């Protein structure tokens, strides 16, 4: 396994005077599943298009397997691309679509037929090989597109929001299917999405994009639990942010003093020194609600103002001296009436302090 199979080195992309990708560095290992996650216009799709060769690179270098590919034409890059709208050839049958990349490579006829059949069986569409794309459902079309992108065993598979046009159930099924193919075939996949659940479900690593730069690139668990800045904390999942001043640092635990004088013990980013401003990110599901203050955890008192029923959980809105806090509680936990005085508690390892 080569550690730096794909390398983006100080990659920049300008459209006229607008810089959509700025000095971007990213290394991707062979066999890795990396999601590029970010709001629209954050540069993630542009980066993918540059890797595929559809867009030119304004500055920096893209290196694939030790070779700089900035100026390599798309058709020589050997990458399978899956688009959001499937981009199947409407005038060719399913089998012809899947055979296309093999025919471009001059594969022998008999081998084309057997590999097409195998690829279609892999996505459970072997029985539809004579249909035209227009006669298939969206989910089936996307599976054909997937088979077409994988059949020639490309060096890298690029996916540009491939599940965006599917309904929720189908999307979740396809997420698991793609994840399974990734593990089974050892594919290197770069997956663009704006759906954080999708990124969390599928990826080995998530690169969070904003304003043409990577804000953080780490495992889903790391990105969710230990965001590197405010943008990441707010973009991925829901969080409560409380501003305060760092009053002490001991090992990985910080003491954060809120404006009202309350002191919390919490984990956080390295590099804080007493006196620095800090922002505590507290995920709603990490908060417990008690009638009376327990021992050994951070506590904050408040009043329940609203409860929102969400099926599998309840969202409780609590007004505290430090501001409004949203907690998410399990259906088995006790419920609270509006106006109830409660104590919120969380452990030091469940909070995360970042720079404001």
């Amino acid at each position, binding site marked *: 396994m080569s550690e730096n199979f794909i390398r983006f080195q100080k990659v920049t992309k300008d459209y006229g005077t607008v810089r959509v990708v700025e000095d971007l560095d990213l290394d991707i290992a062979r066999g890795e599943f990396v999601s590029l996650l970010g709001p629209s216009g954050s540069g993630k799709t542009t980066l993918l298009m540059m890797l*595929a*060769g*559809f867009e030119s690179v304004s500055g920096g270098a893209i290196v694939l397997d030790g070779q700089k590919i900035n100026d390599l*034409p*798309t*058709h*020589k*890059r*050997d*990458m*399978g*691309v899956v*688009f959001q*709208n499937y*981009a*199947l*050839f*409407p*005038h060719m049958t399913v089998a012809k679509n899947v055979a*296309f*990349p093999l025919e*471009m*490579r001059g594969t022998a006829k008999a081998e084309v037929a057997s590999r097409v059949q195998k690829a279609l069986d892999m996505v459970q569409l072997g029985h539809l090989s004579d249909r*035209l794309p*227009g006669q298939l459902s969206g989910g089936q079309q996307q599976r054909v*597109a997937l088979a*077409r*992108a994988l059949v*020639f065993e490309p060096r890298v598979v*690029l996916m540009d929001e491939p599940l965006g046009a599917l309904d929720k159930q189908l999307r979740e099924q396809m997420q698991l299917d793609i994840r399974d193919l990734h593990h089974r075939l050892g594919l290197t996949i770069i997956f663009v999405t704006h759906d954080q659940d999708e990124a969390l479900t599928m990826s080995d690593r998530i690169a969070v994009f904003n304003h043409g730069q990577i804000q953080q690139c780490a495992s889903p668990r790391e990105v969710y639990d230990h965001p590197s800045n405010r943008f990441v904390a707010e973009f991925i999942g829901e969080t409560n942010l409380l501003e305060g001043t760092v009053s002490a640092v001991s090992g990985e635990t910080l003491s954060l003093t809120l404006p009202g004088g309350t002191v919390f013990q919490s984990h956080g980013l390295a590099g804080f020194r007493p006196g620095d401003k800090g922002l505590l990110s507290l995920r709603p599901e990490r908060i417990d609600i008690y009638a009376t203050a327990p021992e050994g955890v951070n506590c904050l008192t408040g009043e329940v103002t609203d409860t929102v029923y969400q099926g599998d959980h309840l969202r409780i809105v609590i007004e505290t001296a430090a501001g409004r806090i949203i907690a998410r509680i399990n259906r088995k936990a006790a419920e609270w009436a509006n106006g109830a005085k409660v104590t919120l508690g969380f452990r030091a390892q469940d909070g995360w302090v970042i720079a404001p």
Partner: protein
Amino acid sequence: MKYAKAIYASLIVFFLIAPLLVILPLAFTSSAFLTYPIPSFSTRWFEELVVNSVWSRAILNSLIIATATTALATVLGTLAALGLRSQDLGMKSQIRTMFLLPMVVPAVVLGVGMQSLFVRLGINSSYWSVIIAHTVVAMPFVVISVSGALTGIDRRVERAALSLGAPPWKVFSLVTLPLAMPGVLSGAALAFATSLDEVVLTLFVAGPNQRTLARQMFSTLRENISPAIAAAAFIIIVGTVLIALALMLARRRRG
């Protein structure tokens, strides 16, 4: 309301084809004049078209010129439409207007200009002068029709083909062109019909040896009003309808 719409539509259609209904039966008259009433039905005027060398020559000329014009206008018009689709082309709408100009410039103006140009080049009164003149007025139809077909093609489909290993010329021949083919075919049919129908430019740039059917009908109308005109018109109309039907069938088969 439904009946009102149907009646209205029928009246419009009738208005459009009434002239044809007047002229076409005269193709089968036995009389020597292009007038009603028809004394008896005969095919003598169709025989005249074949036997009389002036008419048969004109039909042959029309076919030669229309075929060459169609080939030339279709190739050039398709190339123009492809070029106009390119993303990094500046002044795109101005260039497009230039391509469509021959449709709006009065044919007489175009004819005078072409005649003096062709005379200077020494090719006036030749098949080439007529074919070039017809191509100029036929090409805009191809540009419009192919451009329309090209806008219907998702660029991501072409990008997908590139990424799957197809070099650009294969993307064009295997993906873009087949998908644009309905537009190319209707452009070609329009070009053929335009050439068949062209009189004004032909008057300026054709010599006596390039007399086309339309031109021959025009002069026959002035000299002696022979029912051979109606017979020629019948042939042109039947030919046009057949081309239109073939196009419709080709399109239906594509789904």
